[in-house]
Protein backbone atom coordinates (compact mmCIF):
# COMPACT_ATOMS: atom_id res chain seq x y z
CA UNK A 1 0.00 0.00 0.00
CA UNK A 2 1.68 3.26 -1.12
CA UNK A 3 0.81 5.81 1.54
CA UNK A 4 -1.11 8.94 0.68
CA UNK A 5 0.45 12.09 2.12
CA UNK A 6 -2.73 13.40 3.67
CA UNK A 7 -6.19 11.93 4.22
CA UNK A 8 -8.94 14.17 5.58
CA UNK A 9 -12.14 12.71 7.01
CA UNK A 10 -15.10 15.03 6.53
CA UNK A 11 -16.02 17.62 3.91
CA UNK A 12 -17.58 20.30 6.12
CA UNK A 13 -15.97 23.72 6.63
CA UNK A 14 -12.95 22.34 8.56
CA UNK A 15 -12.24 19.45 6.20
CA UNK A 16 -12.68 21.54 3.04
CA UNK A 17 -10.48 24.38 4.35
CA UNK A 18 -7.79 21.91 5.46
CA UNK A 19 -7.75 20.27 2.02
CA UNK A 20 -7.66 23.59 0.15
CA UNK A 21 -4.77 24.83 2.34
CA UNK A 22 -2.77 21.63 1.95
CA UNK A 23 -3.33 21.65 -1.83
CA UNK A 24 -1.93 25.17 -1.95
CA UNK A 25 1.37 23.78 -0.60
CA UNK A 26 1.67 21.03 -3.19
CA UNK A 27 -0.07 18.19 -1.37
CA UNK A 28 -2.81 16.18 -3.12
CA UNK A 29 -5.08 15.36 -0.20
CA UNK A 30 -7.73 12.63 -0.19
CA UNK A 31 -11.00 13.89 1.30
CA UNK A 32 -13.41 11.16 2.41
CA UNK A 33 -16.98 12.13 3.23
CA UNK A 34 -20.15 10.19 4.02
CA UNK A 35 -22.51 12.62 2.33
CA UNK A 36 -23.11 12.49 -1.42
CA UNK A 37 -22.22 16.20 -1.80
CA UNK A 38 -19.71 18.48 -0.03
CA UNK A 39 -20.48 21.06 2.64
CA UNK A 40 -20.98 19.06 5.84
CA UNK A 41 -24.24 19.65 7.67
CA UNK A 42 -23.91 23.44 7.81
CA UNK A 43 -23.53 23.89 4.04
CA UNK A 44 -25.53 20.78 3.24
CA UNK A 45 -26.61 20.62 -0.45
CA UNK A 46 -25.31 24.15 -1.11
CA UNK A 47 -24.71 23.17 -4.78
CA UNK A 48 -28.10 21.55 -5.29
CA UNK A 49 -30.66 22.89 -2.80
CA UNK A 50 -34.12 23.52 -4.27
CA UNK A 51 -34.46 26.56 -1.96
CA UNK A 52 -33.10 29.14 -4.40
CA UNK A 53 -34.43 32.28 -2.72
CA UNK A 54 -31.22 33.35 -0.88
CA UNK A 55 -33.18 35.05 1.89
CA UNK A 56 -34.75 31.81 3.19
CA UNK A 57 -31.63 29.97 4.29
CA UNK A 58 -29.62 33.17 4.87
CA UNK A 59 -26.26 34.52 3.72
CA UNK A 60 -24.17 32.41 6.15
CA UNK A 61 -25.40 29.31 4.31
CA UNK A 62 -24.47 30.63 0.88
CA UNK A 63 -20.98 31.55 2.18
CA UNK A 64 -20.21 27.83 1.96
CA UNK A 65 -20.26 27.97 -1.85
CA UNK A 66 -16.70 29.30 -2.19
CA UNK A 67 -15.23 26.45 -0.12
CA UNK A 68 -17.19 23.87 -2.11
CA UNK A 69 -16.01 25.36 -5.42
CA UNK A 70 -12.38 25.30 -4.26
CA UNK A 71 -12.76 21.69 -3.12
CA UNK A 72 -14.00 20.77 -6.59
CA UNK A 73 -11.23 22.51 -8.55
CA UNK A 74 -9.40 19.28 -9.39
CA UNK A 75 -6.36 19.45 -7.09
CA UNK A 76 -8.12 17.44 -4.36
CA UNK A 77 -9.01 13.73 -4.46
CA UNK A 78 -12.57 14.11 -3.12
CA UNK A 79 -14.44 10.86 -2.38
CA UNK A 80 -18.10 11.45 -1.51
CA UNK A 81 -20.62 8.86 -0.34
CA UNK A 82 -17.86 6.99 1.45
CA UNK A 83 -18.00 5.89 5.07
CA UNK A 84 -15.00 5.05 7.24
CA UNK A 85 -15.42 1.91 9.32
CA UNK A 86 -11.89 1.77 10.68
CA UNK A 87 -9.00 4.10 11.51
CA UNK A 88 -5.94 2.76 13.32
CA UNK A 89 -3.25 4.70 15.22
CA UNK A 90 -0.91 3.62 12.38
CA UNK A 91 -3.19 5.68 10.10
CA UNK A 92 -4.65 2.75 8.15
CA UNK A 93 -8.12 3.66 6.98
CA UNK A 94 -10.84 1.23 5.99
CA UNK A 95 -13.54 2.82 3.85
CA UNK A 96 -16.71 1.66 2.16
CA UNK A 97 -18.30 3.20 -0.92
CA UNK A 98 -21.48 1.44 -1.94
CA UNK A 99 -20.41 -2.20 -1.90
CA UNK A 100 -16.74 -1.56 -2.49
CA UNK A 101 -14.24 -1.66 0.35
CA UNK A 102 -10.83 -0.06 0.21
CA UNK A 103 -7.90 0.23 2.61
CA UNK A 104 -5.74 3.36 2.55
CA UNK A 105 -2.59 4.26 4.38
CA UNK A 106 -1.89 7.92 5.20
CA UNK A 107 1.24 9.69 6.41
CA UNK A 108 -0.93 12.34 8.04
CA UNK A 109 -4.63 12.37 8.93
CA UNK A 110 -6.93 15.29 9.72
CA UNK A 111 -10.21 14.37 11.37
CA UNK A 112 -12.93 16.88 10.58
CA UNK A 113 -15.95 14.82 11.54
CA UNK A 114 -17.91 17.79 12.87
CA UNK A 115 -20.64 17.94 15.44
CA UNK A 116 -23.85 16.11 16.22
CA UNK A 117 -26.85 17.30 18.20
CA UNK A 118 -26.71 16.71 21.93
CA UNK A 119 -29.09 13.93 22.97
CA UNK A 120 -32.38 15.37 24.25
CA UNK A 121 -33.97 12.50 26.20
CA UNK A 122 -37.54 13.41 27.12
CA UNK A 123 -40.49 11.06 27.61
CA UNK A 124 -41.72 10.04 24.15
CA UNK A 125 -38.66 11.16 22.17
CA UNK A 126 -38.55 7.84 20.29
CA UNK A 127 -42.04 8.32 18.78
CA UNK A 128 -42.22 8.77 15.00
CA UNK A 129 -42.94 12.48 14.48
CA UNK A 130 -40.26 13.54 16.96
CA UNK A 131 -37.04 14.54 15.21
CA UNK A 132 -34.17 16.92 15.83
CA UNK A 133 -34.16 20.52 14.62
CA UNK A 134 -30.96 19.71 12.76
CA UNK A 135 -32.63 16.87 10.89
CA UNK A 136 -35.51 19.15 9.89
CA UNK A 137 -33.02 21.72 8.64
CA UNK A 138 -31.29 19.02 6.57
CA UNK A 139 -34.68 18.09 5.06
CA UNK A 140 -35.31 21.74 4.24
CA UNK A 141 -31.89 22.42 2.71
CA UNK A 142 -31.45 19.21 0.77
CA UNK A 143 -34.98 18.46 -0.42
CA UNK A 144 -37.30 21.36 0.43
CA UNK A 145 -39.22 18.93 2.67
CA UNK A 146 -41.18 20.60 5.48
CA UNK A 147 -43.66 19.65 8.23
CA UNK A 148 -47.17 19.32 6.81
CA UNK A 149 -49.09 20.72 9.77
CA UNK A 150 -48.05 23.43 12.26
CA UNK A 151 -44.86 22.25 13.95
CA UNK A 152 -43.64 22.60 17.55
CA UNK A 153 -39.98 23.49 18.08
CA UNK A 154 -38.57 22.92 21.54
CA UNK A 155 -35.29 23.34 23.38
CA UNK A 156 -32.49 25.87 23.23
CA UNK A 157 -29.59 27.12 21.17
CA UNK A 158 -28.84 29.14 18.04
CA UNK A 159 -29.79 26.37 15.59
CA UNK A 160 -33.32 26.13 17.01
CA UNK A 161 -33.85 29.88 16.56
CA UNK A 162 -32.30 29.82 13.09
CA UNK A 163 -34.57 26.98 11.94
CA UNK A 164 -37.63 28.83 13.30
CA UNK A 165 -36.67 31.91 11.29
CA UNK A 166 -35.92 29.89 8.13
CA UNK A 167 -39.36 28.23 8.45
CA UNK A 168 -41.04 31.62 8.85
CA UNK A 169 -39.27 32.99 5.78
CA UNK A 170 -40.32 29.91 3.79
CA UNK A 171 -43.92 30.25 4.96
CA UNK A 172 -43.93 27.08 7.09
CA UNK A 173 -46.48 27.43 9.92
CA UNK A 174 -45.09 27.12 13.48
CA UNK A 175 -47.55 26.17 16.24
CA UNK A 176 -45.14 27.18 19.03
CA UNK A 177 -41.52 27.64 19.96
CA UNK A 178 -40.92 26.27 23.46
CA UNK A 179 -37.68 27.57 24.94
CA UNK A 180 -35.98 25.67 27.75
CA UNK A 181 -33.40 28.38 28.47
CA UNK A 182 -34.12 29.59 32.00
CA UNK A 183 -34.12 33.22 33.13
CA UNK A 184 -31.04 32.75 35.29
CA UNK A 185 -28.91 31.83 32.29
CA UNK A 186 -28.99 35.33 30.82
CA UNK A 187 -27.52 36.62 34.09
CA UNK A 188 -24.88 33.88 34.16
CA UNK A 189 -23.81 34.63 30.59
CA UNK A 190 -23.53 38.38 31.14
CA UNK A 191 -19.90 38.42 32.44
CA UNK A 192 -18.84 36.88 29.10
CA UNK A 193 -20.51 39.57 27.02
CA UNK A 194 -17.56 42.04 26.90
CA UNK A 195 -15.30 39.33 25.43
CA UNK A 196 -18.07 38.30 23.01
CA UNK A 197 -18.26 41.85 21.69
CA UNK A 198 -14.98 41.17 19.86
CA UNK A 199 -17.10 39.12 17.48
CA UNK A 200 -19.82 41.71 17.08
CA UNK A 201 -20.86 40.37 13.67
CA UNK A 202 -22.03 37.03 15.12
CA UNK A 203 -23.79 38.69 18.06
CA UNK A 204 -25.59 41.09 15.73
CA UNK A 205 -26.77 38.22 13.53
CA UNK A 206 -28.12 36.43 16.61
CA UNK A 207 -29.98 39.49 17.79
CA UNK A 208 -31.38 39.88 14.27
CA UNK A 209 -32.83 36.36 14.43
CA UNK A 210 -34.42 36.98 17.83
CA UNK A 211 -35.88 40.22 16.53
CA UNK A 212 -37.27 38.55 13.39
CA UNK A 213 -38.93 35.93 15.58
CA UNK A 214 -40.47 38.58 17.83
CA UNK A 215 -41.84 40.57 14.91
CA UNK A 216 -43.38 37.48 13.32
CA UNK A 217 -45.74 37.13 16.27
CA UNK A 218 -45.10 33.37 16.45
CA UNK A 219 -46.14 31.81 19.77
CA UNK A 220 -42.93 31.84 21.84
CA UNK A 221 -43.12 30.14 25.26
CA UNK A 222 -40.16 30.83 27.55
CA UNK A 223 -38.87 29.14 30.75
CA UNK A 224 -40.20 25.70 29.85
CA UNK A 225 -39.26 23.34 32.70
CA UNK A 226 -40.79 20.00 31.65
CA UNK A 227 -41.59 18.59 28.24
CA UNK A 228 -43.32 15.39 27.07
CA UNK A 229 -43.98 13.96 23.62
CA UNK A 230 -47.17 11.88 23.63
CA UNK A 231 -48.91 9.45 21.29
CA UNK A 232 -49.39 5.71 20.70
CA UNK A 233 -47.70 4.68 17.49
CA UNK A 234 -46.69 8.23 16.55
CA UNK A 235 -46.71 11.73 18.00
CA UNK A 236 -50.17 13.23 18.71
CA UNK A 237 -49.40 16.01 21.16
CA UNK A 238 -46.73 17.88 23.09
CA UNK A 239 -47.27 18.88 26.70
CA UNK A 240 -45.14 21.13 28.88
CA UNK A 241 -44.82 22.99 32.16
CA UNK A 242 -43.24 26.40 32.76
CA UNK A 243 -41.05 27.48 35.67
CA UNK A 244 -43.09 28.47 38.69
CA UNK A 245 -46.30 26.82 37.48
CA UNK A 246 -47.69 23.34 38.09
CA UNK A 247 -50.12 23.54 35.22
CA UNK A 248 -49.51 21.35 32.16
CA UNK A 249 -50.21 22.90 28.77
CA UNK A 250 -50.82 20.95 25.58
CA UNK A 251 -50.71 21.28 21.83
CA UNK A 252 -51.93 18.77 19.26
CA UNK A 253 -49.25 18.25 16.61
CA UNK A 254 -47.70 15.51 14.52
CA UNK A 255 -44.25 17.15 14.37
CA UNK A 256 -41.98 18.01 17.29
CA UNK A 257 -38.44 19.19 16.59
CA UNK A 258 -36.01 18.98 19.51
CA UNK A 259 -32.66 20.68 19.94
CA UNK A 260 -30.35 21.53 22.83
CA UNK A 261 -27.08 22.44 21.21
CA UNK A 262 -24.42 20.43 19.44
CA UNK A 263 -21.48 18.41 20.74
CA UNK A 264 -18.29 17.14 19.06
CA UNK A 265 -18.64 13.87 17.18
CA UNK A 266 -15.76 12.05 18.92
CA UNK A 267 -16.46 8.56 17.57
CA UNK A 268 -13.12 8.43 15.65
CA UNK A 269 -10.90 9.88 18.38
CA UNK A 270 -12.53 7.54 20.93
CA UNK A 271 -11.93 4.50 18.73
CA UNK A 272 -8.30 5.61 18.35
CA UNK A 273 -7.94 5.70 22.13
CA UNK A 274 -7.05 9.41 22.25
CA UNK A 275 -7.24 11.09 25.64
CA UNK A 276 -10.39 13.24 26.04
CA UNK A 277 -10.96 16.02 28.55
CA UNK A 278 -14.41 16.81 29.93
CA UNK A 279 -15.20 20.44 29.10
CA UNK A 280 -17.50 21.62 31.87
CA UNK A 281 -18.48 24.80 30.02
CA UNK A 282 -19.57 22.99 26.85
CA UNK A 283 -20.62 19.87 28.82
CA UNK A 284 -18.86 17.67 26.28
CA UNK A 285 -15.74 15.60 25.69
CA UNK A 286 -12.88 17.22 23.77
CA UNK A 287 -9.94 15.24 22.40
CA UNK A 288 -6.65 16.55 23.84
CA UNK A 289 -4.72 18.48 21.16
CA UNK A 290 -1.45 20.43 20.87
CA UNK A 291 -0.93 23.88 19.28
CA UNK A 292 -1.10 22.33 15.82
CA UNK A 293 -4.35 20.50 16.67
CA UNK A 294 -2.52 17.15 16.77
CA UNK A 295 -3.93 14.52 19.16
CA UNK A 296 -1.91 12.19 21.43
CA UNK A 297 -1.39 10.05 18.36
CA UNK A 298 1.41 11.06 16.02
CA UNK A 299 0.31 12.78 12.81
CA UNK A 300 -3.41 12.57 13.56
CA UNK A 301 -4.97 16.02 13.99
CA UNK A 302 -8.54 17.13 14.70
CA UNK A 303 -9.99 20.32 13.19
CA UNK A 304 -13.34 22.06 13.62
CA UNK A 305 -16.31 21.14 15.77
CA UNK A 306 -15.11 17.56 16.33
CA UNK A 307 -12.42 19.04 18.61
CA UNK A 308 -14.80 21.35 20.52
CA UNK A 309 -17.77 23.40 19.34
CA UNK A 310 -16.60 26.61 17.62
CA UNK A 311 -19.05 27.09 14.73
CA UNK A 312 -18.61 27.04 10.95
CA UNK A 313 -16.44 30.13 10.43
CA UNK A 314 -13.98 29.17 13.18
CA UNK A 315 -14.00 25.56 11.97
CA UNK A 316 -12.80 26.71 8.54
CA UNK A 317 -10.00 28.64 10.27
CA UNK A 318 -8.99 25.58 12.29
CA UNK A 319 -9.05 23.63 9.03
CA UNK A 320 -6.56 26.12 7.55
CA UNK A 321 -4.35 25.76 10.62
CA UNK A 322 -4.50 21.96 10.43
CA UNK A 323 -3.70 22.07 6.71
CA UNK A 324 -0.69 24.28 7.43
CA UNK A 325 0.40 21.91 10.22
CA UNK A 326 0.14 18.93 7.87
CA UNK A 327 2.22 20.68 5.19
CA UNK A 328 4.92 21.44 7.80
CA UNK A 329 4.91 17.92 9.23
CA UNK A 330 5.09 16.40 5.74
CA UNK A 331 8.06 18.64 4.89
CA UNK A 332 6.34 20.56 2.07
CA UNK A 333 6.95 23.87 3.82
CA UNK A 334 9.24 25.10 6.54
CA UNK A 335 7.82 26.85 9.57
CA UNK A 336 10.95 28.97 9.96
CA UNK A 337 10.00 30.61 6.65
CA UNK A 338 8.77 34.16 7.36
CA UNK A 339 5.77 33.93 5.02
CA UNK A 340 4.58 30.69 6.68
CA UNK A 341 5.00 32.21 10.14
CA UNK A 342 2.99 35.26 9.17
CA UNK A 343 0.25 33.10 7.65
CA UNK A 344 0.11 31.07 10.87
CA UNK A 345 -0.12 34.22 13.00
CA UNK A 346 -2.87 35.64 10.82
CA UNK A 347 -5.00 32.48 11.07
CA UNK A 348 -4.52 32.24 14.85
CA UNK A 349 -5.50 35.89 15.27
CA UNK A 350 -8.69 35.44 13.22
CA UNK A 351 -9.51 32.24 15.11
CA UNK A 352 -9.10 34.01 18.43
CA UNK A 353 -11.47 36.76 17.33
CA UNK A 354 -14.04 34.39 15.83
CA UNK A 355 -14.20 32.15 18.95
CA UNK A 356 -14.42 35.05 21.43
CA UNK A 357 -18.22 34.78 21.27
CA UNK A 358 -18.18 31.12 22.33
CA UNK A 359 -18.07 31.31 26.18
CA UNK A 360 -21.06 33.68 26.12
CA UNK A 361 -23.10 31.37 23.86
CA UNK A 362 -21.98 28.23 25.73
CA UNK A 363 -23.17 29.59 29.08
CA UNK A 364 -26.33 31.21 27.73
CA UNK A 365 -27.56 28.05 26.04
CA UNK A 366 -26.06 25.44 28.39
CA UNK A 367 -28.81 22.86 28.98
CA UNK A 368 -29.77 22.58 32.65
CA UNK A 369 -29.20 19.30 34.55
CA UNK A 370 -32.88 18.30 34.28
CA UNK A 371 -32.59 18.20 30.48
CA UNK A 372 -29.47 16.01 30.61
CA UNK A 373 -30.45 13.73 33.50
CA UNK A 374 -33.94 12.55 32.57
CA UNK A 375 -36.57 11.07 34.90
CA UNK A 376 -36.41 7.30 35.47
CA UNK A 377 -39.06 6.30 32.97
CA UNK A 378 -37.37 8.03 30.01
CA UNK A 379 -35.54 5.93 27.41
CA UNK A 380 -31.87 6.97 27.23
CA UNK A 381 -30.47 4.27 24.92
CA UNK A 382 -32.83 4.39 21.94
CA UNK A 383 -31.37 1.29 20.25
CA UNK A 384 -31.62 -1.12 23.19
CA UNK A 385 -34.52 0.74 24.87
CA UNK A 386 -32.76 1.20 28.21
CA UNK A 387 -34.37 3.70 30.58
CA UNK A 388 -32.70 6.23 32.89
CA UNK A 389 -34.02 4.35 35.95
CA UNK A 390 -32.15 1.18 34.93
CA UNK A 391 -28.87 3.12 34.79
CA UNK A 392 -29.55 4.55 38.27
CA UNK A 393 -30.40 1.06 39.58
CA UNK A 394 -27.12 -0.44 38.41
CA UNK A 395 -25.24 2.58 39.81
CA UNK A 396 -26.84 1.79 43.20
CA UNK A 397 -25.60 -1.79 42.78
CA UNK A 398 -22.06 -0.48 42.40
CA UNK A 399 -21.66 0.11 38.67
CA UNK A 400 -19.04 2.86 38.29
CA UNK A 401 -18.68 3.38 34.57
CA UNK A 402 -20.40 3.12 31.20
CA UNK A 403 -18.47 0.07 30.01
CA UNK A 404 -19.70 -1.95 32.96
CA UNK A 405 -23.17 -0.53 32.32
CA UNK A 406 -23.07 -2.17 28.88
CA UNK A 407 -22.79 -5.66 30.37
CA UNK A 408 -25.56 -4.94 32.87
CA UNK A 409 -28.09 -3.38 30.49
CA UNK A 410 -26.81 -3.53 26.86
CA UNK A 411 -27.00 0.30 26.75
CA UNK A 412 -24.73 1.64 24.00
CA UNK A 413 -24.51 -1.76 22.27
CA UNK A 414 -27.06 -1.18 19.50
CA UNK A 415 -26.41 -0.03 15.95
CA UNK A 416 -25.64 3.61 16.87
CA UNK A 417 -22.77 2.40 19.09
CA UNK A 418 -23.55 4.83 21.87
CA UNK A 419 -23.68 7.96 19.75
CA UNK A 420 -27.18 8.79 21.01
CA UNK A 421 -26.80 7.74 24.67
CA UNK A 422 -23.09 8.00 25.53
CA UNK A 423 -23.22 11.47 27.06
CA UNK A 424 -26.45 10.79 28.96
CA UNK A 425 -25.33 7.44 30.41
CA UNK A 426 -21.98 8.85 31.61
CA UNK A 427 -23.69 11.90 33.10
CA UNK A 428 -26.32 9.79 34.93
CA UNK A 429 -23.58 7.53 36.36
CA UNK A 430 -21.43 10.50 37.32
CA UNK A 431 -24.40 12.12 39.08
CA UNK A 432 -25.58 8.92 40.80
CA UNK A 433 -22.11 7.94 42.00
CA UNK A 434 -21.08 11.50 42.87
CA UNK A 435 -17.88 11.16 40.91
CA UNK A 436 -16.41 13.36 38.16
CA UNK A 437 -17.00 12.76 34.46
CA UNK A 438 -13.27 11.99 34.04
CA UNK A 439 -13.52 9.27 36.69
CA UNK A 440 -16.72 7.96 35.13
CA UNK A 441 -15.32 7.90 31.60
CA UNK A 442 -16.96 7.00 28.31
CA UNK A 443 -17.73 3.92 26.22
CA UNK A 444 -14.75 2.14 24.70
CA UNK A 445 -15.40 2.08 20.98
CA UNK A 446 -14.18 -0.50 18.53
CA UNK A 447 -14.37 -0.89 14.77
CA UNK A 448 -16.36 -1.32 12.66
CA UNK A 449 -17.42 2.29 13.23
CA UNK A 450 -20.04 2.01 10.51
CA UNK A 451 -22.05 -1.05 9.42
CA UNK A 452 -20.15 -3.36 7.10
CA UNK A 453 -21.09 -6.92 6.15
CA UNK A 454 -18.75 -9.91 6.45
CA UNK A 455 -19.05 -10.27 2.68
CA UNK A 456 -17.78 -6.73 2.14
CA UNK A 457 -14.95 -7.30 4.62
CA UNK A 458 -13.97 -10.50 2.83
CA UNK A 459 -13.75 -8.57 -0.44
CA UNK A 460 -11.37 -6.11 1.25
CA UNK A 461 -8.84 -8.86 1.88
CA UNK A 462 -9.27 -10.13 -1.69
CA UNK A 463 -8.53 -6.63 -2.98
CA UNK A 464 -5.22 -6.61 -1.13
CA UNK A 465 -3.93 -9.73 -2.90
Amino acid at each position, binding site marked *: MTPHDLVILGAGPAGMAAAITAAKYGIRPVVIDEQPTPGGQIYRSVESTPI*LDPKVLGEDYWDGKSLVEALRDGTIDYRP*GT*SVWQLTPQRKIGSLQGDSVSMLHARYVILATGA*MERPFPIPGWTLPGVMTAGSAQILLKS*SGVIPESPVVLAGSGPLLLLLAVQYLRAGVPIAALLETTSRGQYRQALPWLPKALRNLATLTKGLGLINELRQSGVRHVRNVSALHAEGDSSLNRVSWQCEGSREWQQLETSNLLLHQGVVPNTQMTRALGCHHNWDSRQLAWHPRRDDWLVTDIENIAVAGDSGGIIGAAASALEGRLAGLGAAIALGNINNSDASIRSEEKKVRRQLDKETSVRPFLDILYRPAAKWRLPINDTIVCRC*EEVRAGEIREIAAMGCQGPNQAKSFTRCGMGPCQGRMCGLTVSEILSDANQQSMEETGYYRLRPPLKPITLGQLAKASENKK
Partner: protein
Amino acid sequence: MFTRLLLPETSGEKQVTLIFEGRKLSAREGDSLAAALLANGLTACRTTPVSGSPRAPYCMMGVCFECLMDVEGIPNVQACQVPVHDGMKVRRQQGARSLDS
Protein backbone atom coordinates in the same frame (compact mmCIF):
# COMPACT_ATOMS: atom_id res chain seq x y z
CA MET B 1 -45.95 14.18 8.69
CA PHE B 2 -43.99 16.00 6.01
CA THR B 3 -44.68 17.48 2.63
CA ARG B 4 -42.79 19.39 -0.04
CA LEU B 5 -42.46 23.14 -0.07
CA LEU B 6 -44.08 24.58 -3.19
CA LEU B 7 -41.22 26.19 -5.04
CA PRO B 8 -41.41 28.34 -8.13
CA GLU B 9 -38.18 27.49 -9.91
CA THR B 10 -37.84 23.73 -9.57
CA SER B 11 -39.82 22.59 -12.62
CA GLY B 12 -36.65 21.55 -14.45
CA GLU B 13 -35.80 18.98 -11.81
CA LYS B 14 -35.75 15.30 -12.55
CA GLN B 15 -38.24 13.03 -10.85
CA VAL B 16 -37.45 9.42 -10.04
CA THR B 17 -39.76 6.58 -9.03
CA LEU B 18 -39.04 4.23 -6.17
CA ILE B 19 -40.85 1.06 -5.21
CA PHE B 20 -41.83 1.06 -1.55
CA GLU B 21 -43.21 -2.37 -0.58
CA GLY B 22 -44.59 -2.77 -4.08
CA ARG B 23 -46.08 0.73 -4.22
CA LYS B 24 -44.71 3.36 -6.64
CA LEU B 25 -43.63 6.63 -5.02
CA SER B 26 -42.16 9.64 -6.74
CA ALA B 27 -39.11 11.50 -5.46
CA ARG B 28 -36.82 14.30 -6.51
CA GLU B 29 -33.42 13.31 -7.86
CA GLY B 30 -30.92 14.22 -5.15
CA ASP B 31 -33.24 13.28 -2.27
CA SER B 32 -31.94 10.89 0.32
CA LEU B 33 -34.14 7.82 0.59
CA ALA B 34 -35.29 8.91 4.07
CA ALA B 35 -36.25 12.40 2.82
CA ALA B 36 -38.15 10.93 -0.14
CA LEU B 37 -40.13 8.57 2.08
CA LEU B 38 -40.95 11.29 4.64
CA ALA B 39 -42.12 13.57 1.82
CA ASN B 40 -44.45 10.75 0.71
CA GLY B 41 -46.07 10.59 4.14
CA LEU B 42 -44.21 7.63 5.64
CA THR B 43 -44.33 7.79 9.44
CA ALA B 44 -42.29 4.75 10.53
CA CYS B 45 -39.46 3.06 8.65
CA ARG B 46 -38.82 0.11 10.96
CA THR B 47 -39.77 -1.58 14.21
CA THR B 48 -37.25 -2.19 16.98
CA PRO B 49 -35.82 -5.65 17.71
CA VAL B 50 -36.39 -5.15 21.47
CA SER B 51 -40.07 -4.15 21.84
CA GLY B 52 -41.29 -3.95 18.25
CA SER B 53 -42.10 -0.26 18.64
CA PRO B 54 -42.19 1.84 15.46
CA ARG B 55 -39.33 4.22 14.69
CA ALA B 56 -38.76 6.97 12.13
CA PRO B 57 -35.71 8.83 10.85
CA TYR B 58 -34.46 11.05 13.69
CA CYS B 59 -31.13 12.75 12.89
CA MET B 60 -30.96 12.65 9.05
CA MET B 61 -27.14 12.75 9.22
CA GLY B 62 -26.09 9.18 9.86
CA VAL B 63 -25.57 9.14 13.64
CA CYS B 64 -28.81 7.78 15.16
CA PHE B 65 -29.31 4.62 13.05
CA GLU B 66 -33.10 4.90 13.44
CA CYS B 67 -33.72 4.85 9.68
CA LEU B 68 -32.40 1.33 9.07
CA MET B 69 -34.31 -0.18 6.15
CA ASP B 70 -34.16 -3.00 3.64
CA VAL B 71 -32.86 -1.52 0.38
CA GLU B 72 -32.64 -3.76 -2.70
CA GLY B 73 -32.76 -6.77 -0.38
CA ILE B 74 -29.93 -5.54 1.82
CA PRO B 75 -31.01 -4.97 5.45
CA ASN B 76 -29.62 -2.39 7.93
CA VAL B 77 -29.15 0.34 5.32
CA GLN B 78 -29.21 3.88 6.71
CA ALA B 79 -31.95 5.45 4.57
CA CYS B 80 -30.75 8.99 5.33
CA GLN B 81 -27.34 8.22 3.79
CA VAL B 82 -28.47 6.72 0.47
CA PRO B 83 -29.49 8.89 -2.50
CA VAL B 84 -32.61 7.67 -4.32
CA HIS B 85 -32.42 6.27 -7.83
CA ASP B 86 -35.04 5.28 -10.33
CA GLY B 87 -36.54 1.86 -9.60
CA MET B 88 -34.99 1.60 -6.12
CA LYS B 89 -36.76 -1.11 -4.11
CA VAL B 90 -37.23 -0.49 -0.41
CA ARG B 91 -39.03 -2.18 2.48
CA ARG B 92 -39.49 -1.39 6.15
CA GLN B 93 -37.28 -3.42 8.45
CA GLN B 94 -39.26 -5.40 11.03
CA GLY B 95 -37.25 -6.14 14.16
CA ALA B 96 -33.67 -7.34 13.79
CA ARG B 97 -32.21 -8.17 10.38
CA SER B 98 -32.39 -11.86 9.66
CA LEU B 99 -29.24 -13.92 9.16
CA ASP B 100 -30.19 -15.29 5.75
CA SER B 101 -30.72 -11.89 4.15
